[in-house]
C-alpha cells in the first residue's frame, strides 16, 4: 500500500515541488485552496505530467523521468472521484456503475457489484437516473463506479465540497467504511480539517506547491507549530478512544482514552467501538483546580508541555495527558494569571457538548 511521490512541475508562475511517501490506508493532502494539492493529485492520476520526478504506487512505477516511464492516465488503473459526481445522465445508476469496470480486464477485477452496493448502500438506487438522485447519492454512485474499476489506488478530490453539511456527514461515513474495507491506498484531497482528521492515517500538508510536513494525523494535529497551517478555528488534538458505556437516559456516551474519560452527547456507536475524537483547541479551558458546581463534564488532569509563542491575544497551550497530547487555546492573559509554564500540572476542561458529531469519527 505504499505510495512514493517526488515530483517537480511548473504551471506558468506556479511551481509544484513535492515529495512524500506514505504506507497508510488513507493519505490526506491537506492545504488551502490554490496550494497545489489538486495538481499533485492529477500528477498521481496521470492527468498531468510532471516535468521530472518519480511516482510509484505499490511498487509499480507510474512515472519515472530518469528511466523514461510514463504510463498514460487511462492505463494506470486509478479510481478518481471528482468534486461533482459526473454520471452519464441518460443511463441508469446500474449502467453508470458498470461503466466503471468496462475497461478492467476480467483477470484483474477484484471488486464485485454486490460488494460495492453493500459498501455504499446504493442497491436501492440501481434503476434510477442521475437526475433523480440527491448530491450525496450521486457521489456515492461516483465512488462506486471508481471502485468497480478494481483500481490500484483511489483518488478523491474534495468529494464533499459540493455537498451540504448533512450530506457531508453521510458521505464521510461511507468513506470511513471504504477505508476500513478496501485494501488499496487512498489519497484524499481536502481543505477541510474535519474530514481529514476523521479519515486520514497520514497527513501531508501542502502549501504553495510544496509539501511542508508529512506524518500521522494525531501527531501533526497536536503540534503547536502547525496550528496556523491546520487552521486555528477547527484545529485540535486527535485522540483514539473506545466507547465504554452508552447511557440511554442522558444520551451521553462514556469514552475511554489513554489519558482518561470523556463524555460526549449523541454518539452513534456501540459499546466497544473504537472512535477517533477531535477536541478543538478552542473548546478546551484550563484550570489549576478541578471546578466545583460547574457544568463541565470532562475534567482531565494533565501537565503543560509547551506554550505557543505567536503574537496576539490568544495562545495555544499543549498538554500532556498520560502520554496523549491535548491542545488548549486560551488568552495570554489567562496564561499569565494562572502562571502556566511547561511542567505545571493543570486540568483541561472540555464541554461535553463541544464533542459533537463533527468531531467524532470511526477509527
Amino acid at each position, binding site marked *: 500500500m505504499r505510495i512514493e511521490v517526488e515530483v517537480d512541475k511548473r504551471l506558468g508562475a506556479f511551481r509544484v515541488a513535492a515529495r512524500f511517501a506514505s504506507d497508510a490506508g488513507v493519505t490526506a493532502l491537506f492545504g488551502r485552496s490554490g496550494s497545489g494539492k489538486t495538481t499533485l493529485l492529477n500528477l498521481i492520476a496521470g492527468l498531468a505530467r510532471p516535468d521530472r520526478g518519480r511516482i510509484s504506487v505499490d511498487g509499480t512505477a507510474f512515472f519515472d523521468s530518469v528511466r523514461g516511464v510514463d504510463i498514460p*492516465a487511462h492505463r494506470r488503473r486509478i479510481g478518481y472521484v471528482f468534486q461533482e459526481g459526473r454520471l452519464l445522465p441518460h443511463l441508469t445508476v446500474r449502467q453508470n456503475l458498470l461503466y466503471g469496470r468496462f475497461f478492467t480486464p476480467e483477470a484483474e477485477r477484484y471488486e464485485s457489484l454486490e460488494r460495492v452496493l453493500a459498501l455504499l448502500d446504493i442497491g436501492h438506487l440501481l434503476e434510477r437516473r442521475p437526475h433523480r438522485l440527491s448530491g450525496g447519492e450521486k457521489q456515492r454512485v461516483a465512488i462506486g463506479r471508481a471502485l468497480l474499476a478494481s483500481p490500484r489506488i483511489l483518488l478523491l478530490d474534495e468529494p464533499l465540497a459540493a455537498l451540504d453539511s448533512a450530506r457531508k456527514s453521510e458521505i464521510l461515513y461511507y468513506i470511513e467504511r471504504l477505508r476500513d474495507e478496501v485494501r488499496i491506498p487512498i489519497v484524499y484531497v481536502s481543505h477541510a480539517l474535519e474530514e481529514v482528521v476523521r479519515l486520514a492515517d497520514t497527513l501531508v500538508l501542502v502549501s504553495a506547491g510544496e509539501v511542508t510536513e508529512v506524518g500521522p494525523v494525531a501527531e501533526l494535529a497536536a503540534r503547536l507549530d502547525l496550528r496556523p497551517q491546520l487552521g486555528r478555528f477547527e484545529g485540535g488534538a486527535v485522540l483514539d478512544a473506545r466507547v465504554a458505556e452508552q447511557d440511554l437516559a442522558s444520551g451521553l456516551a462514556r469514552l475511554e482514552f489513554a489519558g482518561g474519560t470523556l463524555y460526549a452527547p449523541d454518539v452513534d456507536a456501540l459499546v466497544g467501538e473504537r472512535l477517533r475524537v477531535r477536541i478543538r483547541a478552542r473548546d478546551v479551558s484550563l484550570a489549576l483546580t478541578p471546578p466545583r458546581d460547574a457544568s463541565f463534564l470532562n475534567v482531565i488532569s494533565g501537565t503543560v508541555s509547551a506554550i505557543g509563542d505567536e503574537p496576539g491575544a490568544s495562545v495555544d497551550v499543549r498538554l500532556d495527558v498520560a502520554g496523549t497530547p491535548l491542545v488548549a487555546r486560551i488568552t495570554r492573559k489567562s496564561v499569565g494569571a494562572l502562571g502556566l509554564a511547561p511542567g505545571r500540572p493543570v486540568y483541561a476542561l472540555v464541554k461535553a457538548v463541544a464533542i459533537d458529531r463533527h468531531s467524532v469519527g470511526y477509527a
Partner: protein
Amino acid sequence: MKTHAAAYALAAVVLAALVLLALALGRYPVSVVQLATLALDKLGGTRPLAPMIATVVLDIRGPRVLSAVLVGASLAAAGTAFQGMFRNPLVSPDILGVSSGAALGAVLAIFLSLGAVAVQAFAFAGGLAAVVLVYLIGSRLRGHDPLLALVLTGVLIGTLLGSAIALLTYLADPSNQLPAITFWLLGSLASIAPRDLAIAAPLALLGLVPMLLLRWRMNLLALPDDEARALGVDTRRLRAVVVAAATLMTAASVAIGGIIGWVGLLVPHAARLVVGPDFGRLLPLAMLIGAAFLLAVDTLCRTVAPIEVPPGVLTAFIGTPFFLWLFAASRRSW
C-alpha cells in the same frame, strides 16, 4: 424499452415503404405488383417481364435509391458521431472540412477537364486530405482544449479551401466548366452509376464498422476529458478513430453525391428526440431516419417538377417543418 423498439420498427417500415415508393414513382410509373413480379423474376422465377421495367427499376432507379439510402445513412451516422464527440449539438459532419476538401478536389478535377471518375476520386481524396490536415494541425496545438483546437482548425482550413474553390470557380471556363462546377456543388444523386456505388458503399461501411464496435465507449465521450481518461478511455485515440470513421463515411458520400447539407446536422437531433443520447441506440435510428429522409427528398426532387431539383434545395424545405413538429411534440432535449 418498448417505445424504442416501436421507433425502430416504425423507421424501418417507413424506409421500406419509401424504397418501394421510390422504385415505383417517376416518369415511367411502375406498380407495386410489377415490382413484386420483377423481384420474383430476379430471384429465379421464369416469368419474363417487359425489359423496360427491368431497366428502369434496376439500372436507373435502383442505384439512385441505394445511393440515397447510403448517403442519407452515412451523413446521419457521421453527424451523430461528431455531435457525440464534440459534445455540441450544432456540429455537422462538415465541421472538420471534409466537404470543403471534397469540393476543392472535385472542382479541381473539373477545372483540369478530367473525367467523371476522376472527379469522384479527387473529391474523395480531397475530403480525406482536408481532414488529415486539420487533424494534424489541430492535435499539435497544445495548451488548448483539444476539441476546441480541432473545431477552430476545421473552420479555418474550411474557409481557406473555400477561397481556393472560389478562385478556381472564377478562373473556370464559363461555357464548359462553370456549369459543371455549379452543378456539382449543388449536389445530386442523379448520375450515380452502380460502379460508383460499388466503390463508395464498402468505403462507407469501412467507416461504419469502428463506430459500431466503439458504441459503448462513445457514450463516455460525453464526460469531461479528465473523467473519461480516469475511467480508462484512451480519449486521444478514440477521437482519432471517430474522426477517421466519420470522415470516411462523409467523404464517400460527398464524392458520389456532392454537397448535401442538413442531413448530418439535424437527423441526429431528430433521432435523439426519440431514443435519447445513448449512442448504441441513437446510431441505428439516426441512420434509418437519414436514409428515409434523403430518399423521400430525392424522390421528390425527381418527381415534383419537370426538371430535376437539386436535393440541397429541398432538404431544408421539407426537413425544417418535420423537425419543428418533432421538436414541439417531444419533451426531452439534448
